[in-house]
């Protein structure tokens, strides 16, 4: 029988929740919810929208016909190997080639110390998996790469941000943070850092700071995880010397072919001290059994037969032109009160909007004006970043970048006027994922 209640209602036992497993998910799935911000990025994938949001490399610049021939040749000549399972550590020849690539940044290492991974993202996942128990502390630059923060969250790490300035991570702040955490009895497992052309901030860790960072971490017994996807994409001079080059025992180095060749191959790697490497191989096997032999051999073939250094150089020229287009249009068009970083390489500019503005609240209007960016909050594990946004220049052509910046400047001016009218900042609660998927242009 049903029973009459208020609202003229009759009671029923249970409604439908659409998802029958709603009360069975692990705690780490809590944040995986639909998000307004993420929905807005769906619009950004349309060609009308100038997307300064995504971090997609401009693979169109590759000699695609050559890559095509190379792949066809690989299957024809080495098909039975390329299409077979491979080892957990990765193809030995490719690992030798990886060592040659790392030598450009001063790293001397042998192929035995390298573990090939499914993009460097998987290396990050494996490192986190073998080091982090729920509640352990990971130090990360503030802001930091969203994909890393997502991985840390999935393993229930507690991320503590260390501030940066135009020269990258601030050593004194790192020291202070470590001291504070030690006093609190918190267990810091590693420092995650992107020293070159950082994602999203665009800044580079100054040479003199590199040794300081290593010394501080050595003293504290904290491992350094050096993520370096953009290191060879500097616009001025030679590549910076890697942290790993000066501390083989204290650093796990993560590298990738995603930006120097193409992310579609999903080939990255970790270079780690022996004991860590052994665990990484086992973790790798339990995660995906073995990675794509096909991709590894294709990358190996490309490195062996193509002028890859020249290709990287041409990528550098292309991205430099786009960086210049972005910086000059920001200079010309942004209203007073906006500030931004001036990257010397990589893909990203980090912009701060005037006091009182909230970059996430600006996004809907920006999308309506056909320009997209990533709000800053997605790059922090805490509530920072509301006044910041990441602008990427890697994918759109220079004239589109200028048009995008022009639209964005107009949107920011409108928002300033609106805030002035209402004399307020907005403080709306928000849950969910604030950053686009990896395939967003």
């Amino acid at each position: 029988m049903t029973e009459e209640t208020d609202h003229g209602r009759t009671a029923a036992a249970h409604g439908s929740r659409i998802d029958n497993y709603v009360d069975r998910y692990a705690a780490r799935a809590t944040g995986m919810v639909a998000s307004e911000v993420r929905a807005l990025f769906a619009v950004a994938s349309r060609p009308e929208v100038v997307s300064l949001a995504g971090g997609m490399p401009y693979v169109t610049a590759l000699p695609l016909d050559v890559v095509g021939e190379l792949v066809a040749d690989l299957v024809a000549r080495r098909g039975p190997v390329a299409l077979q399972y491979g080892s957990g550590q990765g193809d030995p020849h490719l690992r030798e080639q990886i060592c040659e690539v790392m030598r450009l940044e001063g790293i001397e290492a042998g192929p035995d110390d390298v573990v090939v991974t499914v993009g460097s993202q998987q290396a990050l996942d494996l490192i986190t998996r073998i080091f982090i128990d729920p509640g352990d502390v990971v130090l990360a630059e503030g802001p930091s790469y969203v994909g890393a923060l997502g991985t840390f969250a999935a393993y229930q790490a507690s991320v503590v941000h260390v501030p940066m300035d135009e020269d990258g991570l601030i050593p004194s702040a790192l020291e202070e943070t470590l001291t504070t955490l030690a006093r609190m009895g918190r267990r810091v497992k590693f420092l995650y850092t992107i020293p070159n052309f950082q994602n999203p901030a665009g800044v580079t860790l100054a040479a003199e700071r590199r040794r300081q960072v290593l010394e501080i971490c050595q003293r504290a017994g904290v491992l350094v995880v050096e993520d370096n996807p953009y290191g060879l994409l500097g616009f001025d001079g030679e590549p910076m010397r890697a942290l790993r080059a000066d501390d083989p025992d204290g650093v796990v180095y993560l590298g990738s072919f995603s930006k120097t060749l193409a992310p579609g191959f999903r080939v990255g790697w970790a270079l780690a001290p022996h004991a860590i490497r052994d665990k990484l191989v086992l973790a790798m096997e339990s995660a995906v059994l073995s990675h794509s032999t096909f991709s590894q051999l294709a990358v190996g073939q490309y490195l062996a037969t193509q002028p890859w250094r020249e290709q990287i150089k041409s990528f550098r020229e292309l991205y430099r032109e786009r960086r210049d287009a972005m910086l000059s249009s920001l200079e010309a068009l942004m209203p007073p009160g906006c500030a931004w970083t001036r990257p010397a390489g990589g893909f990203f500019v980090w912009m701060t909007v005037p006091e009182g503005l909230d970059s996430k609240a600006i996004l809907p209007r920006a999308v309506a004006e056909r320009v997209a960016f990533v709000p800053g909050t997605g790059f922090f594990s805490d509530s920072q970043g509301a006044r910041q946004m990441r602008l990427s220049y890697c994918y759109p052509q220079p004239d589109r970048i200028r048009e995008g910046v022009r639209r964005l400047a107009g949107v920011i001016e409108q928002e300033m006027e609106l805030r002035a009218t209402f004399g307020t900042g907005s403080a709306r609660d928000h849950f969910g994922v604030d950053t686009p998927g990896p395939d967003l242009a």
Partner: protein
Amino acid sequence: MSDLGHVLVLAGGLSYEREVSLRSGRRVSEVLRALGIDVETRDTDSSLVPSVLADPPDAVFVTLHGGAGEDGAIRSVLELLDVPYVGAGPDACRVAFDKPTAKAVVRSVGLRTPESVTLPKETFHDLGASAVLARIVDSLGLPLFVKPARGGSALGASMVATAEDLPAAMVGCFAYGDTALIEKYVEGVEVAVSVIDLGDGPVALPAVEIVPDKGVYDYAARYTAGHTEFFAPARLSPEVAAACAEMAVTAHTALGLRDISRTDLIVDAGGHPHFLEVNVAPGMTETSLLPMAAEAAGRDLGTLCRSLLEQAATRSADHPAG
């Protein structure tokens, strides 16, 4: 077997609800394909007109939410292309999509809808926001509900409990549109009533009751499975359920809608329904309300969509209902 040859499902678009629309479109396409219907799914871009001209579909299912999909624009284009489609014509859409206008229409036929005021952002700029907002609070009282005059999925919408929270809610609302609808907040049970008309006049499907876990039916609660509990049919007495059904059918008729609509309403503590808004292209995703209502009525979603398309296909596109 269906006489439908080739059917077009429109999904995507450039509105804020693009992602939801793509999901709705996928769902409708799937259920139609399961019935053996030849379905093509398209976004609304520059290839639409040439492709429809080259290979005109028998009928179009519009699952575009917000913007051009609901404001009559795409439907006007379909009329120009002489292609029949499911749902209301452009004129009716224009009225229904603009929430304040729709409220005025339903109020004129005697339906209860929360007191409200509609203002563009220029008014606040020109007259000074604080004076106008203070007057709004004095006049309508608290709490209030602020939302963009046009749009859906609760984007830019928020409940305001105190006068201090109102400016921030206005800013949040104006992020999604240039005109705000500020309504007196009616506390009660959130209910959605879908209406379908398969040729025998508009009929209400069972009301669906919405109980969000966090108390607010926001974007996350709408589109994350498991974050909201739905009761279909709603836990209402037969009299109240009948009043809700009548309200939805009356709104559908008064607004000149056709084939399909969904009315969102609140049932207050006294059991009285209050009209909030109507949707001319209701969501069809896995977490959407119309498919739940259809299921509660024992109707197969695919068969329902097919019947609507068949009905549209027999209609001359020269005589829009709008």
